């Protein structure tokens, strides 16, 4: 089985978010970048397939050279090779078109992406990739088994979960549950050394226009001070929620 894991290069979850250039650009100053958490669950599941069932694992990112450390980290975790499509990730649709091109050239059976990136939260790349490549698609995937050409997946739905059967080629939008948090791997020294020698192929983009463009950013208005209620006066809290906040 040939697995492609799509890796988004995102600010660490603890990052403070700021903008520069008159609020038109994300300010990367002092920001630590990581593998998008939803993608990392998928990468770890891909490693499981590689080790238990036999599979090759390629990781791919659409972005500039600054994303290569993130791809190297994925190689250190155990992916066999990496591809970087050499173009900035401008919007979800154009990224999906670049990935679809990588997939049609590489002939992958299983494409694992995160259900959304934690930076732009578009939540569109996996579904668009599936639609562009005519592959089956399971979103919010929290469990995946592959047997030959058929697959069984569990997806989270509002208020529960659903088990589905499908077949390869398959795209999944993965998230926590694909593997547990405790299954995530921290690259060891040997992995880091080996990752330096693994291929990281830079490919040039296909012509794909961005269908949406970012105009500007703003941060939410600062919150007013909290109204403290004494633990001996819970009646007041109920009254505030009813009369002032009007939420009960």
């Amino acid at each position, binding site marked *: 089985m040939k697995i492609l894991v799509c890796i988004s290069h995102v600010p660490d979850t603890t990052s403070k978010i700021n903008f520069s250039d008159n609020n038109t650009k994300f300010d990367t100053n002092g920001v630590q970048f990581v593998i998008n958490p939803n993608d990392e669950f998928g990468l770890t599941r891909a490693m499981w397939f590689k080790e238990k069932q036999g599979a090759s694992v390629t990781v791919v990112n659409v972005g500039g050279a600054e994303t290569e450390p993130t791809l190297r980290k994925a190689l250190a975790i155990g992916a066999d090779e990496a591809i970087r499509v050499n173009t900035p990730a401008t919007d979800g649709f154009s990224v999906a078109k670049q990935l679809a091109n990588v997939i049609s050239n590489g002939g992958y059976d299983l494409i694992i992406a995160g259900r959304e990136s934690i930076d732009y939260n578009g939540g*569109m790349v996996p579904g668009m990739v599936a639609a562009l490549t005519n592959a089956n698609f399971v979103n919010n995937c929290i469990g995946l088994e592959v047997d030959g050409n058929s697959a069984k997946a569990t997806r989270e739905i509002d208020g529960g979960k*659903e088990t589905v059967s*499908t077949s390869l080629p398959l795209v999944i939008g993965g998230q926590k549950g694909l593997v547990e948090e405790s299954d995530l791997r921290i690259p060891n020294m040997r992995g880091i050394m080996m990752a330096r020698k693994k291929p990281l192929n830079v490919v040039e983009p296909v012509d794909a226009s961005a269908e949406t463009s*970012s105009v500007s950013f703003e941060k939410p208005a600062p919150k007013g001070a909290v109204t403290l209620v004494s633990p001996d006066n819970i009646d007041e809290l109920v009254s505030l929620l009813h009369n002032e906040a009007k939420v009960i």
Partner: protein
Amino acid sequence: MSVLVYTESEQGAFKKAAFEVASYAKAVANQLGTTVTAVAINVNDVSALGNYGVDKVLNISNSQLDNFNANAYASAIKQAAENESAQVVVVSSTADSKYLAPILAVGLNAGYASNVVEAPSNTSPFTVKRTAFTNKAFETTQINTNVKVIGVSNNAFGLVEQSGSASAEDFSPSIPELGVTVESVDKATDKVSIADAEIVVSAGRGLKGPENWGMIEELADVLGAATACSKPVSDLGWRPHGEHVGQTGKPVASNLYIAIGISGAIQHLAGINASKVKVVINTDPEAPFFKAADYGVVGDAFQVVPELIEKLKAFKAQQ
């Protein structure tokens, strides 16, 4: 030319999100000087949509669509959009709508903006405001394509009632190969889901152990709320993953969010930031959550929560 809206349903009845996206579609239609057409799939009575500005309903009845299937639903909506020559297609942010929207966008060769929180600030160029960086910021996005798909954030635009009535027409789209077949559904029918909930009661490690969740569930019951938890609690296996809210869990956009024994890590606060009113109960007055909350109680959850349940019961009895 009308604005098309997909009004989602469950067991033959519209979800609340359906009325919210209909309200949103009406606002867009007013800006464009056109009408609203809704697509409804296997809904028994579509007349309620008239109260939210829908002029016409394309009513699809097809047993192949009894179970949600993203490909089939996206295809049906695409055919409806083409039928109406719609330039704007509006969907919600439920799990199912977020699943089908990217497929729909590819089918219509449309730019797609998700998590949109306001009516367009401009329709030429078409510009919307959406959340980004998991609610740590808003992004103003321009959609450059002729046809646009807009995913409206849950509970962001609200319901806008109109006096009107919707005409209904049967619509029979062709159904593509499903590709994915539902084998089983495991859904607690007696509980409110986090996505649908107006009120969410959430608890963290401050509760000390899974055996102490009885009072959280009781509080949720009294309020008709959904229960949720922090990441450490789900990682420890005290509560199911489906309850984890925050940056890598579920987003919450409820009217009221009550956090009990949750300190308020930046990732947690990001995930629940879209909630309108936040209440925090924590023993530690320095907990970061107090800076993000509207109302706070510095106190022991094991004392405050039972008291709150009692007071709420008395309050509900008076209502």
